[in-house]
């Protein structure tokens, strides 16, 4: 600590700060391009020139780069000195030599750093009259548009893409004034974080290809602080809307979570809200009706069903919607649940119960500081930004160990990888627990790997244990928590939960309510079912059972903002506002409740789920419940978190731990010759599944099998095989993948749903002769 003087003003700085960082922290806007808070200093652009005055009066003042000049106590800095201003002006003039005069048609216009800096320091006119250097652009896929002529060579793109996000398909080619940022060949950028190029680029080289399709000038966009609805991390976003439609999503700085970046699912998944199939008009028995008519019809059906009523909330429904539905069902003496699969319910509630028991869960910023991590499952597809945080931990020297059954991009950075079938995950976790309790010698390769993992974890200053809930069963989740306890107070536990509000939904879920609900529908105990934001009919494992069960219903009432299988099958469909169109609260993987504000209204405004339920209650003659009251009933002392703030931990009564880990067998029973595993990718999520641009990147449907096993079974790459599930039989081409465990067939979510199997379920594979 100390102070520097900038143009006479005393500025405090932290140890290790450079002059630019210290100045920006107190709002002194030294112009810059290549410096980035997270990516650091490079000194490539030469724009942040300032003058420093040496203590020795015999020495002349000198111009230095503020981003490369360490802050030292008593340093005299001048931003306004003539020499510094001349350097900055010269830099801008040189950069503008080759920069095109296309601001009026450039997508970056209005939020262009180069534009701002040129106005701030550059000469107002160009002197250069020669030919400009031009480049051929590349096709970088459906998400990012390339316009190389605008480049000012700040290297932010490759520093983010290669050094920070550890991608290897975007580089800095050539040299001198022809430096070219692009791919080896045309093709979509492979990184799940590629969309951040749009924001890190200080000019219009990389722009949002989706936003371009329905463009608006940034100053015309309506924005408000929002929270990403696409996974349990809860990154903060800034949606932009115009004329009643959502146009784009930008990152919004949150010091403890996403900071400057978001993943491509978060940036491009928003297209679901403008999908042509999105339900916007209420329907009763396939006839379009007014909101009031639909509400009256729903109320009549609910009255007719008396207490034979069920309400299914959702892990992607906000806290208000779930709590209101629960309150309504309580008033009607019906059954309330939030999950479509009992196994996922137990898994999620177990995870939340364990998280409530542990010391505070690490934020993303803290995860970057861990020095060892055990990752169970595929984080990239289920919580992309946690993957990015662990990539930073890896860069800082952390040892990553991955225990998984199918492909996961993090294996590239793992010190140890254990690829085992789903039914062996639990046994491996138990072995790790045993080893931590009593270290023993390794006898074979797998034991050696387990020993390595246990060694990293026990030796680490702060080990992190993180599991993906969707591909784990409750006993495994509990064993992971036990391992965390066994490692002592240094260890930290986290889970990637199966939805933006899975934590909140789990807290509101009565124990075993999913199976109770399903059985009640099957036995005719429920005649009217209200589904809010859930898609039980599209569930991978139980979709077929739900479809059969729902045929027994008199009325299926669905509230949703996407055209899911359940919404399509609804007798009464009440379209609700998408996330950017309403305000509400999500509880993220840490248990942090974050509020999001309504960004815009559609030309025909849609109500939120909570509002529909309040209206429904009124139609039923019940005292209209109020979300705030309902939430303070559920969570004592509840205060709605203000959108745009850091959010606050949700004070909730502890969930009962339902799982007895002693029932986990040393090795799960082998479910048969082949076991299904879910292979997912970063765009795979119920809402983002309606985003056309993102879907263009979805991997082709294939049966992923380990090459060694394929060889022993005589199955070749590309060969078509028949997969037999309990619901359907499918023929798919085989794709060989080293990251698939023996005896495991890794399949996409859609394929699993069609076959009727879930992650870890047995499956039959037949060769087609």
């Amino acid at each position: 600590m100390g102070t520097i003087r900038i143009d006479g003003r005393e500025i405090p700085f932290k140890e290790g700060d450079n002059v630019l960082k210290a100045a920006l922290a107190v709002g002194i806007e030294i112009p810059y391009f290549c410096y980035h808070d997270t990516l650091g200093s490079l000194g490539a652009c030469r724009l942040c020139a300032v003058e420093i005055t040496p203590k020795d009066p015999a020495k002349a003042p000198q111009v230095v780069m503020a981003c490369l000049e360490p802050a030292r106590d008593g340093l005299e800095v001048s931003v306004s000195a003539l020499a510094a201003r001349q350097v900055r002006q010269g830099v801008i003039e040189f950069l503008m030599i080759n920069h095109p005069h296309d601001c009026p048609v450039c997508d970056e216009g209005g939020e262009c750093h180069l534009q701002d800096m040129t106005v701030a320091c550059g000469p107002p006119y160009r002197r250069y009259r020669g030919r400009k250097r031009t480049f051929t652009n590349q096709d970088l896929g459906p998400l990012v548009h390339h316009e190389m002529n605008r480049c000012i060579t700040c290297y932010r793109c490759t520093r983010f893409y290669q050094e920070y996000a550890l991608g290897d398909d975007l580089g800095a080619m050539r040299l001198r004034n022809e430096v070219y940022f692009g791919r080896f060949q045309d093709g979509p950028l492979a990184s799940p974080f590629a969309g951040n190029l749009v924001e890190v680029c200080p000019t219009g080289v990389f722009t949002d290809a989706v936003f371009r399709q329905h463009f608006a000038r940034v100053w015309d966009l309506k924005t408000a602080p929002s929270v990403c609805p696409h996974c349990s991390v809860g990154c903060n976003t800034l949606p932009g809307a115009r004329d009643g439609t959502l146009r784009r999503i930008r990152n919004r700085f949150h010091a403890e979570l996403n900071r400057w970046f978001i993943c491509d699912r978060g940036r491009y998944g928003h297209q679901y809200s403008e999908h042509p199939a999105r339900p916007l008009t209420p329907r009763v028995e396939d006839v379009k009706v007014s909101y009031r008519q639909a509400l009256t019809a729903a109320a009549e059906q609910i009255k007719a069903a008396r207490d034979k009523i069920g309400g299914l909330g959702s892990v992607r429904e906000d806290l208000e919607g779930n709590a209101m539905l629960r309150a309504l069902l309580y008033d009607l003496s019906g059954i309330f649940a939030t999950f479509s699969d009992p196994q996922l319910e137990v898994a999620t509630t177990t995870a939340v119960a364990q998280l409530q028991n542990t010391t505070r869960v690490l934020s993303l910023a803290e995860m970057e500081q861990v020095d060892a991590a055990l990752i169970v499952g595929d984080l990239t597809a289920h919580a992309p930004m946690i993957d990015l945080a662990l990539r930073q931990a890896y860069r800082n020297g952390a040892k990553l160990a991955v225990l998984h059954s199918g492909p996961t991009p993090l294996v590239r950075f793992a010190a140890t990888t254990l690829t085992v079938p789903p039914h062996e995950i639990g046994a491996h976790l138990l072995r790790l627990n045993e080893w931590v309790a009593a270290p023993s010698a390794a006898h074979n390769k797998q034991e050696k790997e387990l020993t390595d993992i246990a060694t990293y974890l026990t030796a680490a200053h702060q080990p992190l244990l993180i599991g993906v809930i969707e591909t784990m069963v409750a006993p495994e989740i509990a064993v992971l928590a036990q391992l965390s306890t066994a490692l002592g107070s240094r260890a930290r536990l986290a889970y990637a939960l199966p939805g933006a509000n899975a934590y909140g939904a789990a807290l509101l879920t009565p124990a075993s309510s999913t199976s109770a609900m399903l059985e009640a529908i099957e036995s005719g105990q429920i005649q009217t079912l209200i589904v809010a934001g859930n898609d039980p009919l599209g569930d991978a494992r139980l979709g077929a059972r739900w479809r059969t069960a729902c045929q027994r219903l008199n009325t299926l009432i669905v509230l949703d903002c996407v055209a899911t299988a359940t919404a399509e099958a609804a007798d009464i469909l009440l379209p609700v506002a998408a996330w950017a169109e309403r305000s509400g609260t999500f509880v993220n993987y840490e248990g942090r409740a974050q509020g999001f504000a309504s960004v815009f209204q559609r030309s025909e405004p849609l109500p939120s789920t909570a509002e529909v339920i309040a209206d429904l209650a009124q139609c039923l003659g019940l005292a209209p419940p109020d979300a705030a009251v309902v939430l303070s009933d559920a969570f004592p002392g509840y205060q709605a978190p203000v959108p745009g703030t850091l959010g606050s931990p949700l004070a909730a009564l502890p969930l009962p731990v339902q799982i007895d880990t002693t029932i986990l067998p040393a090795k799960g029973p082998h479910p048969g010759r082949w076991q299904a595993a879910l292979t997912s990718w970063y765009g795979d999520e119920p809402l983002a599944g309606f985003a056309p641009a993102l879907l263009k990147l979805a991997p082709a449907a294939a049966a992923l099998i380990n090459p060694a096993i394929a060889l022993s079974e005589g199955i070749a790459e590309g060969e078509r095989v028949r997969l037999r599930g309990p619901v359907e039989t499918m023929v798919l081409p085989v794709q060989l993948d080293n990251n698939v465990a023996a005896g495991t067939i890794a399949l996409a979510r859609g394929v699993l749903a069609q076959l009727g199997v879930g992650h870890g379920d047995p499956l039959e594979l037949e060769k087609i002769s």
Partner: protein
Amino acid sequence: MNDKLNRQVLQKHLAQLPATHPERRAAILPMMQALQIERGYLDDAAVEEVAHFTGLSTTEVEELATFYSLIYRRPVGRHVLRVCDSVCCSLRGADQLLVVAEKYSGVPLGKVTPDGAFSVLPSICLGLCDQAPAALVDGEAVGPLDEAALQALLQRLQVEG
């Protein structure tokens, strides 16, 4: 370019790697050079091959291949004439030499003459300022050049084939 040939060249080269270069990636420049000597230039398949052999990504190989102006990513003629166009040579008439060379060859700078005999490339400073305007013919320094000398030189290259 033939992949099999590439592989043979690279394998031969790998076998000759000195013990002081235990890391395969350290051999990337000599490898690219070896392939270029054998095949004239590096096509996309060659870049992929080098990436495979060194364990680097194709992006990293491409970054290096395109950084070094003596590594060719496009076909060149059997002879390569690199005319210096930096300050000294430029002041002594290099720009005009490049115009003459382009006119003589009948194809734009950087392209191969239809008979495949030669390519003319502009070059950054060759360190031959004492012989300005200077050039490199297949790695051999020539200069000072004038229009007549240049034309004679190109004619000789064409005849040599």
